């Protein structure tokens, strides 16, 4: 079986606890992937450089939704700087660049997407949420 469809990812895909509309978000960033039809929108509320709330809406494959959801779990309550750093590490992981053990560990649950670096057809799904995050925090 394709290792990417791990319990963790399927769990996020199913629970959808981060799939919700925020009231008055500060940032709304739509990410889409014309080839697959993934179309997800990330919403953030940022106060004093802290991501105080985040959620997403839209439709997409299991990988794009799980990655978005795991990302939200990871950055919610954290500083903008922290989120940017994680995004940078995540993108480097997907590009197949070698990470320090520290860096890899710091990705926590998002490590589940490591094998996307050998699945170019799906890498765009896994990075969609992170691209939304990066754009929002620019």
């Amino acid at each position, binding site marked *: *079986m*394709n290792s*990417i*469809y791990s319990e963790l990812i*399927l769990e996020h895909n199913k629970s959808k606890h981060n799939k919700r509309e925020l009231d008055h978000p500060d940032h709304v960033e739509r990410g889409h992937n014309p*080839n*697959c*039809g*993934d179309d997800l929108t990330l919403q953030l509320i940022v106060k004093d450089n802290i991501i105080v709330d985040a959620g997403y809406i839209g*439709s*997409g*494959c*299991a*990988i794009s939704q799980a990655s978005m959801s795991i990302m939200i779990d990871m950055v919610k309550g954290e500083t903008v700087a922290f989120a940017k750093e994680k995004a940078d590490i995540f993108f480097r992981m997907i590009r197949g660049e070698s990470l320090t053990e520290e860096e890899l560990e710091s990705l926590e649950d998002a490590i589940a997407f490591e094998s996307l670096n050998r*699945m170019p*057809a*799906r890498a765009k*799904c896994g990075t969609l949420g992170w691209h939304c995050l990066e754009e929002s925090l620019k």
Partner: protein
Amino acid sequence: MLYRDYFPLLKHHPEIIYLDNAATSQKPESVINEIVHYYEEHNGSPHRGAHILSVRSTEIYERGRDAVRDFIHANRSEEIIFTRNATESLNLIAYGYVMHEIKSHQNIVLSITNHHSNILPFQQLKHLGFELRYLYCDETGQFLDSELDKIDENTFLVSLPIISNGIGVIHDVKSVFDKADAVGAIKLLDAAQGVGHMEVDVQALNADLLVFSGHKMFGPQGIGVLYGRYELLDTFHPFLTGGDMIEYVTEQTSSFAPLPERLEAGTQNVEGVLGLTKAIEFIEEIGLKNIHAVEAELTTYAYEKMKSDDAIEIYGPTELNHRGALITFNLKEVHPHDVASILDSHHIAIRAGHHCCQPLMHHLNLQSTCRVSFSVFNTRDDIDKLYNAINEVKKVFYE
């Protein structure tokens, strides 16, 4: 000999179940060998030289033109133009003919089932002021009768696919082209999904223009065909210009060679034409009737099997004699890309996405779908394995 054994890739990889034949076909050994033979024995620049390799390359190229002529029952070799793929053929029509001839009060009528390549070249000309209309189909792919009224006395050109790569419907080309004839519109048929699967006879189909790609019919990549009825094609303006399509060139103006050279600029792809010629031979060796019988049987088998499963939603024709050798479907609650990825891990190659048919998808209110498409080498066993793998996908997502 099993049909599968004609295809080296499938022989070398017994584990691979290739069900993406509508995207591109696998190549028979005879086609691959002929390419090697060409480069090892005959390679030269066609049309130009007096030396033996150039002469032979020219002969191979022109014999290929004759082979295509016979294969699609064209009247004359000059009616066959070689391009790089069906997409370029369609662009040639748009840039070389429509752009010069259409009037702003006219309209072009496209089937909503058209592939992007059979839509965008016309959209690109919309600044000329004409109207772009669509023939809508119902969910089985049939045009409603009233739709054909969109074809009227101002219709310049009508274009549709013989088989939709998006939902597999075999269109009733005759009814559409009869209506086009009644108003004097140009009739363009996209035969990319038909050639190699069914008889494609430009006379019987009553097409003015017809396009297809070699790579979808057992030929190599990089070669496509435009057929045009001679009197019409001869009014085409040059599209790509440059070497080999001219008569006289002066600094400021040029005169052009007659058909077919006029529409083929630069050094042509002899390898591609030869591969295509061998692919035609391959098809004729096996026989279109046999190919069709095998594919129809498989399509029925797969359709019945999938239909009996409530978790699977099938799109397109319900009457199987209206369906080409492909089935688009979705597994409920599962995104098609996830289905395709998991099937891939079981060595089953299918396609997921919009299949270059976004307007159709939008019309049918679909985001994206899975597609399995068959060829003569597929077997019931392939379909059983497909179905077992779909059950694995269910386990992943439903349990």
